[in-house]
């Protein structure tokens, strides 16, 4: 799939190799707002002040994270409110909307970078249970808030789990999945994503009339949707490659029209890039059970 040929695409979007950079641009805000720094400072141990952690992990997740040798440091978050102006689209042509793709990507990056910065401030090795959300507010026309939250964790054995970019790893796995992943001898490297905003062409009147009453394949539509999904997934894989990942687990593809109407769709692909921790790892054999609770 990495060899996906994009020249066949109709859009003017970036090719998979030309991704928006991981260091998001276009913001006048510092990476770590002073209020956040103050809150995070209160979490840390220092003479005369007992530190503590905060976390949105459930008790189950908390205990499982502890079980694999991590201690939660603090609940971390990042957000960015973005104005998403509309890009002109050609009525009858399917194409990627590169500006919107860039904006969606950039806004999420800003939110994630701020979350990373909070985790970094805490000296974290990683962030688990990351959730990315998009909020819309009544008062903000064409604006959306991108928010990333998670729990910063640190390895208790002093070993560093930071990724090859020197950043804390991020992962959208639940505590249960995180524990299970570690049992399989893998470590998470980072939450990777790829996005593509695509305009699906409206059909001309002639076309509609010709196929009216028939259940025929609509090749243009099939191709456009195919293309958009492949672009999103390819970009996600490029991110994973940059992290030196062996693979991506828990990949999901979300399709949202946000506020653009039915024909403009964002295809967002998300997953956790992982690497093998050791080659000789033996996976414990799972037991089979029928549960009695419910």
């Amino acid at each position: 799939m990495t060899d996906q040929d994009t020249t066949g695409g109709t859009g003017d979007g970036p090719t998979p190799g030309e991704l928006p950079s991981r260091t998001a641009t276009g913001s006048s805000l510092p990476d770590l707002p002073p209020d956040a720094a103050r809150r995070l400072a209160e979490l840390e141990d220092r003479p005369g002040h007992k530190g503590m952690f905060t976390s949105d992990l459930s008790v189950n997740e908390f205990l499982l994270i502890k079980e694999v040798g991590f201690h939660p440091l603090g609940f971390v978050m990042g957000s960015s409110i973005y104005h998403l102006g509309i890009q002109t689209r050609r009525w009858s042509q399917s194409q990627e909307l590169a500006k919107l793709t860039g904006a969606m990507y950039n806004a999420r990056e800003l939110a994630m970078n701020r979350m990373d910065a909070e985790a970094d401030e805490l000296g974290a090795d990683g962030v688990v249970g990351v959730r990315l959300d998009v909020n819309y507010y009544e008062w903000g026309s064409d604006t959306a808030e991108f928010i990333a939250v998670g729990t910063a964790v640190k390895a208790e054995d002093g070993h560093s789990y930071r990724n090859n970019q020197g950043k804390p790893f991020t992962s959208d796995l639940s505590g249960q999945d995180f524990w299970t992943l570690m049992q399989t001898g893998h470590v998470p490297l980072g939450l990777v994503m790829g996005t593509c905003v695509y305009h699906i062409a409206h059909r001309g009147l002639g076309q509609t009339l010709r196929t009216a009453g028939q259940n025929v394949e609509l090749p243009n539509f099939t191709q456009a949707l195919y293309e958009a999904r492949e672009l999103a997934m390819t970009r996600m894989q490029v991110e994973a490659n940059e992290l030196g990942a062996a693979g991506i687990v828990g990949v999901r593809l979300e399709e949202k029209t946000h506020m653009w109407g039915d024909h403009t769709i964002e295809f967002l692909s998300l997953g956790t890039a992982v690497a093998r921790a050791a080659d000789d790892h033996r996976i414990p054999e799972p037991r089979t059970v029928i549960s009695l609770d419910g």
Partner: protein
Amino acid sequence: MTRHTDLGPGRDPQAGLHQAMAALSAAPPGGRGVTSDLSIDETLLLHSVGWEPVDLVFGVSWWSIPWGAWQWQTGEIAEASSAFAGAFAEAAQQMREECAQAGGSGVVGVEIEMRVAAHHISIELTGTAVRRVDHHQAGFEFISDLSARDFALLTRAGWWPLSLVVGASFVVAPRRTARQWAAQQGQNTELPHLTEALYLAREGAMARMQRAGSDAGADGVIGVRLREGPLGHSARIMQFVAVGTAVHLAAGSHRPIAPTMAVPLDDAERTFEAASLRSSR
């Protein structure tokens, strides 16, 4: 994580049932009856760590917010934040008193209902007071929204709940000036002043919750939920409320629970999953 309890071979469920039927013809024991909203699983798990239910307990508080608090300002609305804090503190205090009066040492599974209306904030707490089976009383110990199951699991691992901690902040979204609006129109760009306002409100709610945890002498706050969104009576006002349970490590060190992997053979899963917690809360 789920737990499996095999009640073991050699038990005769039907003998138990016959015994139960016989007990129904006996006279009621009399005295003050225990009330509890725990499920049987929770009751058993609680008992396995040496606790039992005593009574349903409540805490309710309504606080007023004066007219004008919402209208005449931008940024954080201090009246609303302090009304929230006051109402929560009062409701929690009542719950503690009811628990002590019922002879309990703590409250588990507290359900929190909070409403923010134009002129008042209401906090309503419902939970089950519990005490040690051996009736050893160490005074009032904790209030927690953890389920009895989470309580049992946590205490096994050497941790102990302390109290519910909350932090709230209410902000009015700043309006864009005409010039900002014009400059941003038609562009895909971040809106820094809005980003900042919401970011700070969230941080404010978290920081207050954290401080409450610190004051309780906690080692951490788990199960934090951030509730946020526009208020019903004004879309421009956003509320951010962080709630969690402050915990501390009571044993010298964390005790591993050593789970094993299991492949369930059930088709239709009707079991507890952590993910369901997140969405339901």
